[in-house]
């Protein structure tokens, strides 16, 4: 009877998981997603727990309690820390898969080597390699994103790096193949541990050469690995639900990383093995051209006289936490009957959908957020394009200058607007480490300073100015 109930529960969970992801296709239904997902998870847990083989309930409860204690605070992190958190949870996921795989192997090795069928061994090896490399890899990624002191932000490169990395992986896989053929020899346990070790090391070396700002892409790739390790676990335990949920997770990671690479016009290979961030150091120097600055008052006037304003937020807005001030500015302008739109570039910020979340946090209606193609169409009619801490995503060089690393990346055509106001702190380049000719165009005026402060002043000026007249 119980196995039937369990399977039924797993089918239910499957259906709920699929709907959960399906409902994410529209913000209106999205809230349901979480409900569906959570219910599915609960059902699955309970269905598993009633298994008569389970006797040590204390252990389970303990682990769950600790999980809760750690999990809740992890969900309270500021939105700017979401990428790190995501990376961290991939690390946890990878670890879980790896550990279960390890436990299962040694269990069967001890209690019944005949259970170590070729098929299971393949699954186990896949599970641990993927699991453990995801573990360390994601930890590194989290570290880089959190800008932890002792983890180098810049790509660390050394000769034959890629060869060495791939080499490591190959060795691990070869060992795995051996293990598949001789699962229960005296030396098998050792080999197994060796594979674990190699995977852990590979995870680290795999991330080191990748620049901190490329982490988001890496994260979603690791995301799909975490999913695949879950699939492998499903094969090991002959558990369909694991396979399905893992496959769903895997495809999500895959698709997100593809989207990011497309939007950056870069290949997986370039992200993973290109040591991209380096370019920065190289190009960053040598800026002769002159910036035209503008005062808060002047800028406020320009905005006041405009009919249509397009605000182009970028990573800088996230860093400065300027979304709430931006909201105030938005209110001031709309109050004057000025149409204000936000131009959202797919890779503005440091993770997909980054800007959307921040602006949503500041209660800006998502009907005001416009995607790149749409906004570029009416850019020529735009009176003022206000660039808030965005750089690469508005760099016209992407359109014509083959030499720049961002060549070919679709950009928001701020330069086609009647005039441009750009907010940034310094003359430093953006993520891609290249000059932005937009800042030197005749109809571009700079507002140097921290985005939060500048926008705040603009808003105050307008509210004040508004009364003045």
């Amino acid at each position, binding site marked *: 009877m119980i196995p039937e109930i369990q399977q039924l529960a797993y089918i239910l969970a499957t259906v709920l998981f*699929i709907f*959960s*992801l399906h409902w*994410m296709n529209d*913000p209106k239904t*999205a*809230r349901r*997603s979480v409900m569906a*997902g*959570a219910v599915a998870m609960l059902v*699955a*847990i309970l269905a*598993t727990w009633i298994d008569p083989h389970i006797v*040590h309930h204390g*252990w389970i409860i*303990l*682990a769950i309690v600790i*999980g*809760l204690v*750690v*999990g*809740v605070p992890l969900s309270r*992190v500021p939105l700017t820390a979401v990428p790190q*958190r995501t990376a961290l949870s991939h690390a*946890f996921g990878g670890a879980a*898969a790896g550990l*279960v795989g390890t*436990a299962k192997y040694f*269990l069967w090795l001890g209690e019944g080597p005949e259970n170590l*069928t*070729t*098929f299971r*061994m*393949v699954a186990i090896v896949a599970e641990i390699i993927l699991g453990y490399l995801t573990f360390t890899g994601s930890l590194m990624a989290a570290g880089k994103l959190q800008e932890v002191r002792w983890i180098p932000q810049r790509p660390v490169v050394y000769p034959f790096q890629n060869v060495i990395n791939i080499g490591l992986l190959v060795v691990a896989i070869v060992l795995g193949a051996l293990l598949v053929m001789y699962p229960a020899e005296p030396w098998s346990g050792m080999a197994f541990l060796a594979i674990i070790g190699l995977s852990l090391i590979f995870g680290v070396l795999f991330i080191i050469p990748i620049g901190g700002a490329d982490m988001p892409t890496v994260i979603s790739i690791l*995301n*799909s*690995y975490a999913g695949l390790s*879950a699939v492998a*676990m499903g*094969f*090991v*335990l002959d558990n369909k639900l*694991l*396979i399905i*949920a893992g*496959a*769903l*997770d*895997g*495809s*999500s990671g*895959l698709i997100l*990383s593809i*989207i990011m690479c497309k939007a950056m016009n870069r*290949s997986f290979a370039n992200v*993973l*093995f290109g040591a991209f961030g380096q370019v920065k150091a190289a190009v960053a120097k040598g800026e002769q051209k002159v910036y035209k600055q503008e005062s808060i008052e002047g800028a406020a006037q320009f905005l006041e006289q405009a009919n249509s304003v397009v605000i182009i937020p970028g990573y800088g807005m996230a860093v400065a936490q300027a979304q709430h001030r931006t909201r105030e500015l938005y209110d001031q302008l709309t109050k004057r009957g000025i149409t204000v739109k936000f131009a959202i570039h797919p890779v503005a910020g440091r993770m997909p*959908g980054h800007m*959307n979340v921040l602006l949503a946090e500041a209660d800006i209606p*998502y009907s005001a957020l416009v995607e790149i193609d749409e906004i570029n169409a009416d850019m020529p009619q735009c009176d003022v394009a206000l660039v808030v801490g965005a750089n690469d995503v508005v760099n016209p060089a992407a359109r014509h200058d083959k030499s720049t690393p961002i060549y070919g990346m679709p950009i928001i055509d701020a330069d086609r607007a009647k005039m441009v106001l750009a907010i940034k702190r310094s003359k430093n380049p953006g993520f891609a480490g290249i000059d932005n000719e937009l800042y030197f165009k005749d109809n571009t005026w700079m507002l140097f300073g921290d985005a939060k402060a500048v926008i705040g002043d603009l808003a105050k000026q307008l509210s004040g100015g508004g009364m003045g007249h």
Partner: protein
Amino acid sequence: MRRFLFNSGLGRVIPVIILAACLTAIFLSASPAGAQSGTAQEAATPGSHGPATDYWPMLFVLILASFIGLGVIRRVSRLLHTPLMSLTNAISAIAVVGSIVVTGADYPPLIRLLGGIALFASVTNIVSGFLITDRMLRMFKKQ
């Protein structure tokens, strides 16, 4: 190999590799697996490929689930890509199912310890994943 790995991107080839691996495995293990799970009446019934029932269903499930995954995710609103990441996080923590079994069953303590850690990790992901997703989604307002 390396070329291929690079151009097509690790991310995209991994699934292929996995599947390939599994299939080779199956051919290597054809007989043992058969021996373990074939059943008299199944073997007697042509059309119901007895010996294979062990792992083939899982491959079918994997294939179908991947199709669904790609189909559904491709249609997720761009607005929600950040919440999507944390949601799939939480979902993939379904590994909890495996961890529970390993932790709670009557196995040697050391093994159960591994399971316990895995269980803790999974629960953490479930809790934080769903909570933060909900927190983000609550922010999205139409007007």
